């Protein structure tokens, strides 16, 4: 088991609120790792710190052997971490295909000169971007919507599109923020198939989710955050029985 991501003692505060405190966790390559906890526990904050949207106040994060750049999301993306957002952030007025093409930005190079000259290399790159985008749209199952504006896609399709866009950057780690939010049972089952397929194809997935059934059935390991601190990190079955976890969610023992 190689360690892909290692976070040590990560801390983040906003004014008077300590949103993350001494959070340490390890994600192994090829696994599906779940991050759960009650609302406000700091899960999305951790994501934002990880992907560079917020600058962390304390701790280190090592990814694929190197420390992660601080506070620069585009460099984190280039390093190989791609994410989706809790409140879907697509480019609403671009087509589905164009959205995914933008996802390829970090792996392509054409600049102004290439754009203006449209030399062979640039044209080749553009064609490759387009091809890859179509492949990814097909992979997540929305190939028939490629030319529709992202705004016009159904909710479930939008989530899939966001995943396709994240995949476009060939990430080593795919970080999904509540991908099943707002989905019914059928859609969630389909999503589960998709994520398992990702793992089968060699991706590592970090997942924030509230859907307990999905998490327990899908994840290899799970970490639980509560009030910004990690209170458990283990296989799902063990976490489910962890007293501290139960108390965090239910506020006290049952019965």
């Amino acid at each position, binding site marked *: 088991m190689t360690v892909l991501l290692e976070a040590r003692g990560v801390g983040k505060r906003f004014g008077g609120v300590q949103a993350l405190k001494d959070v340490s966790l390890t994600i192994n390559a090829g696994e599906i790792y779940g991050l759960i906890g009650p609302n406000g526990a700091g899960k999305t904050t951790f994501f934002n710190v990880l992907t560079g949207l917020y600058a962390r106040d304390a701790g280190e994060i090592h990814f694929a052997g190197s420390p992660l750049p601080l506070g620069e999301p585009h460099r984190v*993306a280039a390093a190989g971490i791609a994410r989706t957002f809790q409140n879907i*952030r697509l480019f*609403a007025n671009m087509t589905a295909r164009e959205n995914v093409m*933008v*996802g390829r*930005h970090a792996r392509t190079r054409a600049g102004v000169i290439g754009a203006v000259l449209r030399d062979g290399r640039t044209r080749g790159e553009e064609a490759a971007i387009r091809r890859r985008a179509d492949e990814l749209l097909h992979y997540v199952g929305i190939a028939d919507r490629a030319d529709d504006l992202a*705004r016009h896609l159904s909710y479930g399709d939008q989530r899939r599109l966001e995943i396709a*866009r994240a995949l476009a950057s060939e990430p080593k780690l795919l970080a999904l923020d509540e991908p099943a939010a707002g989905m019914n049972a059928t859609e969630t089952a389909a999503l589960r198939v998709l994520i398992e397929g990702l793992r089968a194809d060699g991706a590592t997935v970090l997942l924030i989710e509230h859907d307990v059934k999905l998490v327990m059935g899908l994840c290899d390991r799970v970490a639980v955050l509560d009030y910004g601190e990690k209170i458990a990190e283990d296989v799902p079955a063990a976490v489910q029985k962890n007293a501290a976890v139960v108390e965090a969610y239910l506020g006290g023992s049952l019965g």
Partner: protein
Amino acid sequence: MMDARRKANLGALLIAAALVLAPVVVGMSFGNAWVRILDFAVLYVMLALGLNIVVGFAGLLDLGYIAFYAVGAYLYALLASPHFGLHWPIWAILPLGALVAGLFGVLLGAPTLRLRGDYLAIVTLGFGEIIRIFLNNLNAPINITNGPKGIARIDSLAIAGKPLAKGIEVFGFTIPGLYLYYYLFVALALGIVFVTIRLQDSRIGRAWVAIREDEVAAKACGIDTRNVKLLAFAMGASFGGVAGGLFAGFQEFVSPESFGLMESIMVLCMVVIGGMGHIPGVIFGGVLLAVLPEVFRHTAAPMQQWAFGKVVLDPESLRMLLFGIALIAVMLYRPAGLWPDPRHRRELAARR
């Protein structure tokens, strides 16, 4: 029925013909004064296209764009006039103007592009004003810009040593200088159009739209938003610089008065009213706002004479008044402009 390809080719041919014949038609129908206005219109179209990259593509509101025009113009004036006694040729100054203006763009953009839209607008406005104030006052203790008096007797544009103003003889016909200026300007404007179209449909162009749509998501996709925005700023600025140089060589006189906030706003109007981000719309806006005021100037006074017996509204203030009203009306009813990109219209309308 023609297929799409032949239709497109025919369209292009018609446009080309119109472009070539425009000064002739205008000159014969309305006189040389209007050909001069046409020349200015092309300069404005260049400015509008440049600003379009900044405002229309990247979504950055620049209220001080005219400063880059000023930089290009004054650079030309300093390098090709009796002021310093230098007389560099056009092919040296114009690229230099583009470079220097682009540099100013980077200087302005580097610290400020991370600001939110409305703050950026005010800062760029301030920058434009600072440039104008410096141009107005850098005549003491060393005289760089000659202050409010401006720099006169600038070398007129010349190709291969031959001043365009004199016109040329071709097959026994004399093509007047004003026409030659027009063709030069159109050639360069077409160059700018070409570059802009290529940029629009490219990795960089997509990145600009992505930033405009959702900057956070754009960053998560690996786009270095700071540099990509700087690129938009610098490119827009450099086009402004080129147009500025042409302006100086055309008018043969520059002064700080031509480069104030009103001019920046006018160029912004061209982009906004024409059709933000939509190249044909922007060109349309540029021509409209360059020509209409002149139409007013020539008709408003006589019309008022005829209607009221005297001139009630000075044509200049009438123009500004109508500008202001047009801005408000367009924002209220057609926020994507008069001739928008079909997609952009939906974008701005949807967000209400």
